[in-house]
């Protein structure tokens, strides 16, 4: 069997375990929709005029925000926590002792998470369009899709890299949420920042969440142009490369005692 087929076969098993785990299903699939509903209730879903004669629902901005959140949950959070659990249970060590190539396994993990992320975003968008009248991307769809895939892959790699500093499985939810929650609040994801203090603005821009959120929201709805946020994507890619270097150098297959 070729290594690519081995990797795809692994995706199938990863998915099987994923759909049978009620916690992962709930937190990955239902959680984001819950946020979408909560935001719409709290902030309302009024009509706003975004350009001469163009009126959209506010949900048109919530949907890509929640989409960004879903991608981060499905990729960064999910990968970091499930890999740490697999590592500490000894499952990764066993895989490492088998002839399955290391990259096939990692590729399978990342590929699965990216597919789940795309699915989630599609569900979010459909939900937002049907229940809240959100405007879906048309001309900017290619830019949106590109941002989605790049962002998902980068957050997967960062999730893998993060496991290097997670001491044990019990600590993984705390470390993962501790690193990501503050960023979600200062990065236009949960709350659109209006005139933030300059330091907060700069702080947010140092990290990848802000760039991903801006690029995704910006390519979901745009009055004109392709919606491509090249600079944000470059920063994201740089974080991805940095994450890959850390992951390759420090990733551990054996439980930490």
């Amino acid at each position, binding site marked *: 069997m070729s290594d690519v087929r081995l990797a795809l076969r692994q995706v199938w098993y990863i998915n099987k375990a994923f759909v049978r785990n009620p916690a992962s299903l709930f937190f990955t699939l239902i959680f984001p929709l819950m946020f979408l509903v909560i935001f719409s209730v709290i902030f309302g879903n009024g009509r706003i005029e975004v350009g001469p004669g163009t009126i959209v629902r506010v949900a048109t901005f919530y949907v890509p925000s929640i989409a960004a959140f879903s991608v981060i949950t499905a990729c960064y959070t999910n990968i970091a926590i499930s890999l740490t659990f697999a590592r500490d249970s000894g499952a990764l060590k066993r895989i490492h002792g088998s*002839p399955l190539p290391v990259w096939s396994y990692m590729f399978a993990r990342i590929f699965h998470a990216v597919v789940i992320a795309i699915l989630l975003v599609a569900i979010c968008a459909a939900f937002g369009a049907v229940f809240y009248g959100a405007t879906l991307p048309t001309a900017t769809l290619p830019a949106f899709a590109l941002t989605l895939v790049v962002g998902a892959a980068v957050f997967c790699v960062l999730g893998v890299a993060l496991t290097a500093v997670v001491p044990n499985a019990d600590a993984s939810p705390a470390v993962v949420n501790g690193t990501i929650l503050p960023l979600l609040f200062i990065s236009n994801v949960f709350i659109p920042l209006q005139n933030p203090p300059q330091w907060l603005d700069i702080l947010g821009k140092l990290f990848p969440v802000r760039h991903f959120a801006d690029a995704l929201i910006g390519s979901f709805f745009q009055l004109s142009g392709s919606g491509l946020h090249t600079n944000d994507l470059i920063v994201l890619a740089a974080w991805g490369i940095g994450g890959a270097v850390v992951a390759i150098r420090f990733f551990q297959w054996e439980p930490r005692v």
Partner: protein
Amino acid sequence: MAGIAVEVLDLRKSYGSLQALRGISFSVAEGEVFALLGPNGAGKTTTVEILEGFRRRDGGQVSVLGFDPALGDRRLKQQMGIVLQTSGVDPYLTVAETVEMFRGYYPKPRPLNEVISLVGLTDKKDSRVTKLSGGQRRRLDVAIALAGDPSVLFLDEPTTGFDPGARRNAWEVIKGLKDLGKTIFLTSHSMDEVQFLADRVVIISAGRIVAEGTPDTLAGREKAAASIRFKLPPASELPAAIRSQAKAHGDFISIETQDPTRALYELTSWAVQAQLTLEGLEVTRPSLEDVYLEITEGSETAGAPA
């Protein structure tokens, strides 16, 4: 003559200032059941994990099926089966799915149902891993190790935590694997296990080899003095021929002798003539455990860092 499956020459490994392995050498022939024995911290797991490719050595030479395991060669991994001391599997997959997943990694896997029945999990085939008992989980570990039809199997304390029945079953499975021609490298705490399974035993203590042999001849066990024990009836006196060898332990008398045939003859013919019954009469040789305890105790002191 069988080839060499595993060869280790002057293997050394330190963790910081602790010398876990101080230069050990041994070889394992193809088709042999080889047991590495020793107290906790002796270096058993370090040795087996170096052979499996999980740990790096500091010095010496290691070859498994002609490969250096430190290089992580896939052709070697395809021929090795590993049962780690502790290891996890995905709890949400079933027994059959788990074994099938691992089978896919190997070029010539053993048929799924055969692997599952070999470890006695046929009834649990479609159960999720979460539903298995501890002993069943361990058997799944062995099934995974067998999935690729390996020629060398590493079993690191495979029956720790088993109840006696499950242990006996596991032993039968391992015996069956030997009959299939597999080379089996076993580490163990259990003397019964080694006595039952191993063709050859190496005992390590504090990172050094302290004894080597078959379970029956280890440390001259077959030639060691036998011990005759019995209760001496009140107001009786032993015959002169054995009196000098006798030692009293409370009510019991023990006689250590290199010639138990003769000593027993002297003892019993005297008792029969005097119309005495020797209660609790028994003749024993040092068990593998006695030998092991004696060896590891002695070497612990000798091997202590200066």
